[in-house]
């Protein structure tokens, strides 16, 4: 059973590698560019993404925000996020992201609190027995 799962996973990885665009291919069209919007609208937009994530699945997103990271001791996994604040700076919301090309933490990541721009595909990640949460996959990160 476990061998079959491993085989399917390997096959899926190979298929994705074969289908993935070449490094110099033209970049995908951005469906939602949060980096061009004002702070007030960005906050409203991210609220929509977090509240109604299914509407945004598959969209290519670009967002600018604050780099944040969190280590979950229970599942021993580190999460990375891009956080934005509202106009009063009293509330903040963020989206988790997963880099297309994984980097070493902490050496290859910016410092927590640094301004970053993330471009990637909006998706829903799900853990066992938990509500799916929004995540930006295949992300590219640039920091200022």
């Amino acid at each position, binding site marked *: 059973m476990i061998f079959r799962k491993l085989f399917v996973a390997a096959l899926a990885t190979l298929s994705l590698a074969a289908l993935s665009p070449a490094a110099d291919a033209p970049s995908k069209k951005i469906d939602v560019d949060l980096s061009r*919007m*004002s*702070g*007030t*609208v*960005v*906050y*409203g*937009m991210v*609220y*929509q993404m977090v*509240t109604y994530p299914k509407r945004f699945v598959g969209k290519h997103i670009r967002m600018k925000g604050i780099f944040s990271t969190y280590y979950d001791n229970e599942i021993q996994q580190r999460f990375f996020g891009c956080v934005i604040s*509202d*106009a*009063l700076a*009293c*509330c*903040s919301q963020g989206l988790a992201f997963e880099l297309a090309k994984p980097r070493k933490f902490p050496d290859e990541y910016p410092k927590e609190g640094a301004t970053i721009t993330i471009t990637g595909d909006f998706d829903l990640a799900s853990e066992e027995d938990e509500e799916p949460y929004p995540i930006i996959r295949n992300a590219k990160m640039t920091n200022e």
Partner: protein
Amino acid sequence: MPELIEKLSFYLEFPFVRYAIIVGVLVSLCSSLLGVTLVLKRYSYIGDGLSHVAFGALAIASVLKLTNNMLLILPVTIAVAVLLLCTGKNTRIKGDAAVAMVSVGALAIGYLLMNIFSTSANISGDVCTTLFGSTSILTLKLEEVILCIALSCVVLFCFVLFYNKIFSITFDENFARATGVNTTLFNLLIAVIVAVIIVLAMNLVGALLVSALVVFPALSAMRVFKSFFSVTIAAATISVFCSLIGIVIAILAGTPVGSTIVAADIVAFGMFYSIGMLRNSGN
């Protein structure tokens, strides 16, 4: 300029921006209509008191983990509005003292409850959002917009239908009673409408800034216009215009919605004050 218009039309494609404008216009229209009556009855500060009561009720609703906060906030705010506006002069604690007591009391109890029975990881954020509106106007759900439209229609209908009675109660309650107007009933109606408007307006500008929506348009209109009818129409126009301008600036410039609307109201007051002064000096 064309760039700004292009940017605005781009933002208007998002439903949540359209919801914010619809709710903003309706709330400012309703609050300005009743604002004239409240200012003339010397109850300018009641908006502040009731919004703090609504904040306290919101804290209780959060502690009780109610799915629909409105089920508690609206009845509690209406009950306090009735107590404050309908008991009149037959109370031991009168007018402004009662409003001040209720205002600070509800604010303190609300904050205390939020801290003791915290259900959120970001208490200061929740408090800040409720008090200053923050971006709650941009996070409205469709059902909240529908509720706001329905309540605004009720308020407008009541105001138009009972305009003459509200007018007579506003200027001389004793005379209105002598002419057969059921002043108790209409004071009760005004109290209920005021409470509904305050609860609606909390989403737009937050609990601390609600009074501005009630007071500024009425005072601006009173600088230039003299009759009750013309002041009411002018206050409604000023309020809607300032709200629209405030929301548009907040969206384009990324400023907080509530305080931008209030800033637009202050500028309008300054303009109308100057016009009034110029007219008086001309006369």
